[in-house]
């Protein structure tokens, strides 16, 4: 029976996470006590404060490399870089949450989620300028969970973080003001499948615990090294853990939920999921595979290799025939998850480990920024009942609103990975690492996949520029300050990281450290 002396906790190292979670808790209290007319502004301020504060904290903490809270949480380059990325992208998403200018009813979120759709009360509130301000603390919780997820060095913490990030997301997925049925449906689907997946993860956890007697990644590695990891428990456990993570990252063949949820959820939430969740999930994947199972690469490498291919191909091919912008971006995210796995593969070789890791980090950042931007543009294009996401509505957008079309084109080219955009720099970094690692067949496939993917990005450009505008075309809303900031930041980032990426590349280079 070990003594139960409390472990030492480096609060400084954990500051980023703690700040966000604190902000979230405060938010709950405000919901409880602050008068309604104040809530919105206070909540927005608080949520932004949390995320931006976390970002600042990351900058301050940067440089530490340690394990804290009884080795449960890592405070190292990778963790901090990812926490910073999540905080930044989270802040941008929060800004999109806070947009009031676009929807006539002042918010993208429902006034009262509890009311049944179409009920008289619901109709009464439909145009009312209220909304569920709980979304802000919920989002903060989710962001906090993600940051912890990416930093956790312990399967149990990882699981808890997984739930902390998931549960709020399930809820806010269902809180769209327009098209509530779709929104609720996406919530149900996400929830059921999500908890299904976490059950797998949990079972995997249990098996690994059974194998190594611990859920600490470091100890798992050692015991794996000790007993040659030749145990069915070990292998099955690892498999189930990976399944759980692949689900969160929305990687084929565990992507089924992605398109539906992305389409149904309120667009700001979709942005949050597409950008932050992916970053967090990949953070967890990197840590799990390289810290926990780094010594038994040969078990998982071939599998990740093939899954990367599947994901790229499925995402690219299914994207071709999509007719809904958000769905299209969902499949694009599936394809990009595949590209990211190429980077994950490239970590393999010890000699080039740093490069593979750093390129993956960089890719995550660029992809997140571009995607958030893309969804931000989606929120601008609206018609009678909310956003006009059907492709046909986008015909001739350029002649209606050249600027919007231009910005969207920039993001699309970025996603397609054309030179002089961040997307190209990221792809280049990842592919270079992969070829360095001898995985050139994978790279060739990736290139072909991105060629196919380019087709559906181009399709949207063709629609916007080369098609005459449709009669009952949508109106392009004039964004308020928040969305404007989001668009400005993401567009600038997409360009700058394409033109002069060096500073950020260096940062990723230095951050490419995994302790534990």
């Amino acid at each position, binding site marked *: 029976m070990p003594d139960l002396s409390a472990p030492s906790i480096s609060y400084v190292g954990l500051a980023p996470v703690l700040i966000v979670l604190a902000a979230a808790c405060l938010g709950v209290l405000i919901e409880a006590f602050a008068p309604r007319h104040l809530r919105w502004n206070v909540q927005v301020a608080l949520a932004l404060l949390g995320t931006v504060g976390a970002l600042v904290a990351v900058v301050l903490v940067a440089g530490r490399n340690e394990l804290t809270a009884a080795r449960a949480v890592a405070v190292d380059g990778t963790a901090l870089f990812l926490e910073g990325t999540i905080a930044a992208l989270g802040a941008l998403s929060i800004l999109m949450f806070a947009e009031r200018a676009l929807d006539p009813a002042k918010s993208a979120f429902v006034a009262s989620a509890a009311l049944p759709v179409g009920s008289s009360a619901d109709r009464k509130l439909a145009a009312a300028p209220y909304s569920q301000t709980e979304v802000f603390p919920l989002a903060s919780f989710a962001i906090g969970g993600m940051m912890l997820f990416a930093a956790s060095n312990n399967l149990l913490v990882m699981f808890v973080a997984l739930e902390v990030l998931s549960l709020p997301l399930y809820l806010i997925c269902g809180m769209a003001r327009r098209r509530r049925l779709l929104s609720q449906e996406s919530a149900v689907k996400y929830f*059921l499948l999500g908890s299904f997946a976490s059950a797998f993860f949990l079972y995997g956890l249990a098996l690994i615990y059974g194998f190594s007697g611990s859920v600490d990644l470091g100890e798992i590695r050692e015991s794996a090294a000790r007993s040659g990891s030749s145990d069915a428990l070990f292998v099955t456990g690892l498999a189930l853990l990976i399944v759980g993570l692949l689900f969160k990252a929305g990687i084929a063949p*565990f992507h089924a939920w992605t398109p539906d949820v992305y389409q149904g959820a309120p667009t700001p939430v979709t942005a949050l999921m597409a950008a932050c969740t992916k970053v967090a999930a990949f953070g967890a994947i990197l840590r799990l595979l390289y810290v926990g199972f780094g010594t038994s690469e040969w*078990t998982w490498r071939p599998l990740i290799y093939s899954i990367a291919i599947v994901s790229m191909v499925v995402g690219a091919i299914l*994207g071709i025939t999509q007719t809904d912008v958000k769905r299209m971006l969902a499949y694009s995210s599936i394809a990009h998850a595949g590209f990211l796995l190429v980077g994950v593969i490239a970590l393999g070789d010890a000699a080039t480990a740093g490069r593979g890791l750093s390129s993956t980090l960089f890719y995550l950042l660029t992809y997140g920024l571009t995607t958030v931007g893309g969804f931000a543009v989606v929120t601008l294009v609206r018609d009678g009942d909310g956003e006009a996401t059907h492709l046909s509505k986008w015909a001739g957008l350029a002649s209606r609103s050249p600027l919007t079309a231009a910005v969207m084109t920039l993001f699309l080219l970025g996603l397609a990975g054309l030179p002089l955009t961040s997307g190209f720099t990221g792809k280049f970094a990842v592919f270079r690492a992969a070829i360095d690692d001898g995985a050139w067949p994978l790279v060739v496939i990736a290139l072909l996949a991105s060629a196919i993917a380019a087709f559906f990005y181009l399709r949207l450009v063709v629609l916007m520029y080369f098609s005459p505008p449709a009669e009952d075309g949508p109106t392009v809303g004039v964004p308020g300050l928040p969305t404007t900031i989001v668009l400005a930041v993401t567009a600038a980032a997409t360009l700058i990281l394409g033109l002069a990426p060096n500073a950020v590349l260096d940062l990723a280079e230095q951050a490419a450290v995994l302790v534990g």
Partner: protein
Amino acid sequence: METQYLPASGLLGSAWLLVVIPLLGAAVLLLGGRRLDKIGHLIGCATILLDFVLAVALVAALAGQPDGEKAVTDTLFSFIPVGELQVDIGLLLDPLSAVFILLITGVGALIHIYSVGYMGHDPDRRRFFAYMNLFVAAMLLLVLGNGYVVLYIGWEGVGLASYLLIAFWYRRPAAATAAKKAFIMNRVGDVGLIIAVFIMFATLGSTSFADVFAGASGLAAGTVTALGLLLLLGACGKSGQVPLQAWLPDAMEGPTPVSALIHAATMVTAGVYLIARSAPLFDLSETARTVVTIVGLVTLLYGAIVGCAYDDIKKVLAYSTVSQIGYMFLAVGLGPAGYAVAILHLLTHGFFKAGLFLGAGSVMHGMNDEVDMRKFGGLGSKMRITYITFALGYLALIGFPFLSGYYSKDLIIEVAFDSGGALGWILGGGAMLAAGLTAFYMTRLMVMTFFGRPRWDKDAHPHESPAVMTVPMIILSLGSVFAGFILVNVFPLGAWLEPVFGPEPEADHVVAPIVVSILTTVVVALGVAAAWFFVARREVPIRPPVNVSPVIKAARANLYGDAFNESVFMRPGQWLTRAMVYVDNRGVDGAVNGLAAGLGGTSGRLRRTQTGFVRSYALSMLGGALVVTMAFLAVRFV
């Protein structure tokens, strides 16, 4: 035979003006636009006359050169200097090119003057003279070039000019087509010439006459033969020899002076010039020479036979040209013995054929552009000058004793016999037979045109042409009477050309010359008699008789030459083109579009798996999980 060319100096250094003057004329006329319409023709004639004067001066100066220095070259500027390849634009003036520049500028000038009248009513006369100048310039460049590349430039320039002139009346589809045909068939020949140039560079590293001829002796026999045959191909294209003869008669679509220029003075003689100029190469290849003679023989018989069947006065003259050029090829093919003779015939032919064409033009001029001889007849009385000059040209052509044709043609037949062996007899015999045929069709032409009862259309009012047209005809007729005599006895061409072709070998006569000329004269007489018997003695039907012997049918269809080209090249070509277009659209492009469609289809089908049912998604996840686990276990334990 070593030829070294001395650098040109003094007057001889101004040979380049010969080319530049008419070229400038053409440029001025083309760029000048409508404002020059009034004086266009004057500019044209002035430039050519000036050229002629300059040419005479140059030849005089050349004649003044001491023996052994009768070949001067003048390098103007570096054209294509790349590594070992150093192509310069340079001119070579030697007895051979001297003869040609005189012919070209002389006859050219006459034809220009004639055209002033002939084209008097044409609104585009300025353009006409521009093209004519261009033609002369290109031809002069061709004969003055000091290397094969320069020659080739002139060569294609002539092709272009002929294209422009044949298509001068481009509103007539026939004219446009004929012009295109001429250019294309010339291009076929050009390919031969240019490939020869490649071989020269590949083997000798140079393309200038001096280097090529100097190095020729060192070449493999096969190479030389190849060179000879390729050059011959080029020559055939330009000179309308079998198998590339088909364009020449069609070229009659152009205005008559053009025909005169093409057939007498310039274009068609280019082939003869090329072979004569390349004598040092042909001297080295028996095979090549033999082929040349055979081509010549075939062509001259072909031309003579077809010439007998046509009713179109210009077509008949055209085939006569084909046949006469055949004589020249035959001669040059015979090597040192024949070169000078060929050139001699080329000159005399230049005179009388130009005369004949101008005469024909004059007739058409008077008969408002009628060309069907069956609608002529009895014109002798209406247009005396035309009649007389034409008659003289006719006599010269059939080789009436002591007229110019007599000298040149007899000599060719002699040389043919002298070449010895069975081939000698065949060549000689063929040539002699052709002489008879020539006499026949030319007599037929004479009779149908000038003698007998008029068969004119009602609205025809034949009248003599103005002096500006008749004077050149008179001058040419004088030439066709005396040229032969002069060039043999007074001013022996053979001696003049000796620096180029070397001394004429002392021929061992197989048949005594006198016998040959007597025989020839007899054959010619027979031909004339036959024509008289068949044509003059009975009424000439307005419509050509339909039920005639297959021979005549074939001849009327120019022995199926065009039919052959159509069925062997044109139609398969069109078919191939269509096939290719289909392949490209359906095949190559289809493959790509098919791939795209395939991806789209796959995508569409895969989409269906996204059913929207949570439980099916869960199933896919469970399946995935199982697969992953199994894979892991497999990797691990298998």
